[in-house]
């Protein structure tokens, strides 16, 4: 068996652009899923009962569905439901956001619950509203505690973006598979893809380890 690694170099521009899309998808998903996660967590904790139940249903639904199914669902069902013709990229983003928001909501809820009641009472005794107490006292502490969990979610998300390749989003996995199909260089392309994911993923994982130490809570 002979290898021809030049195929990777020949397609470097396409691979670079695809890697860019993968990174963009990761950032965009988190940028939306963090505030949405906080909102859903707040709804689960403080909202009027029916709204609370709705938020809980959302979390339990999307946390327990395979992401790839959500991706397909977003591709086939979402346009029918909403009447919107979204691009594959936007559809993939929507699917990832739906999934990661559910995870983030649970992470934030756990973080908020871990802050003891006395902290909120101290804030309220100063005359703060519940929202002010949440924003100024509870969330800053909760964020520190859950930072490592959020970072782990981030690393998982970075790899899971490859799942949107099934709806032809031109991110790294999709483009690498396309090149493979055109050149029949299976091993080379899979290796190149693995190398790129790993080289980008490993520093992120190390960053997570560093954050675990940096944000250790001392009381």
């Amino acid at each position, binding site marked *: 068996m002979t290898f021809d690694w030049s195929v990777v170099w020949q397609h470097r521009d396409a691979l670079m652009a695809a890697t860019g899309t993968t990174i963009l998808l990761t950032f965009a998903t988190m940028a939306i899923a963090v505030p949405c996660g906080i909102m859903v967590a707040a709804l689960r904790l403080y909202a009027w009962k029916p709204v609370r139940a709705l938020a809980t249903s959302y979390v339990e639904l999307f946390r327990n569905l395979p992401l790839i199914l959500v991706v397909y669902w977003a591709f086939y069902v979402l346009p029918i439901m909403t009447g919107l013709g979204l691009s594959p990229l936007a559809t993939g983003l929507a699917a990832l956001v739906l999934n990661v928001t559910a995870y983030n909501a649970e992470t934030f809820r756990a973080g908020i619950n871990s802050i003891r009641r006395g902290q909120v009472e101290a804030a309220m005794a100063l005359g*703060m509203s519940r929202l002010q107490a949440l924003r100024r006292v509870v969330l800053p502490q909760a964020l520190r505690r859950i930072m490592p969990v959020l970072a782990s979610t981030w690393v998982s998300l970075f790899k899971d973006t490859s799942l949107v390749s099934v709806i032809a989003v031109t991110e790294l996995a999709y483009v690498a598979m396309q090149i493979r199909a055109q050149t029949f260089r299976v091993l080379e392309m899979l290796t190149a893809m693995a190398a790129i994911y790993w080289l980008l993923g490993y520093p992120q994982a190390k960053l997570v380890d560093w954050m675990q130490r940096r944000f250790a809570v001392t009381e």
Partner: protein
Amino acid sequence: MNKSATQSGRTKAGGITIIRYRGVVKRYGDFQALSGIDLDVHAGEVVCLIGPSGSGKSTLLRCTNGLESIEGGDIEFEGTALPRDERELRAVRTRMGMVFQSFELFPHLTALANVAEGPRTVLRKHAAEANRRASAMLAKVGLADKAPNYPSALSGGQQQRVAIARALAMEPDVMLFDEPTSALDPETIGEVLNVMKQLADEGMTMVVVTHEMTFARRVGDWIAVFDAGRIVEQGPPEQIFDAPTTERTRDFLSHLGWTG
């Protein structure tokens, strides 16, 4: 408890009534935590609430600023019944400082930022003004040099003094202390009590739930003895500590080894 018993021998009784409790009832499910509390707190007075654990002292304090709601009776603050509306209640809370047994400093903020937080977020002061006020309050409790420290780097006594400064930064009309020294090492209790004594000397109106009988005897102007959700006796410290009129008060004090 009849009305005359809430007044006789009261040195500062001429002052305005800041807090008036009348028939206050608090229930947790089937448990009656407070069964008809009558008590007045006058301007400039230090009122100490003493009694065994679980007798309702802390509960009454927490009802005073609406952290707990009441099921019966009235609590009046500066002549107006405690509002039920959240927004109005918040306005009342800004005029009552509260100090907790477990300090409850905000661990993610420095000592200075802890004290500046109320003026900044609630009173909407500019950062410079809030910090200036916070510095002054930290100096008042003798902790000017600890301004940049986080709570985790402070001793229990220092944390509680920062908590007192945090409450004072709101310029409250009354200070509520909920067993402020119960969670402290014996050697740091004194520094907190000294700050409280200094506040009392400056004329601050204070309601203090405490197990520190020496403090209650020396600094208190009026003592209320709690048992099983009722005030069994109230009066000036000389009466309570030297000539208690009820068996329950005598029992309680003798259990603490109080000899007068």
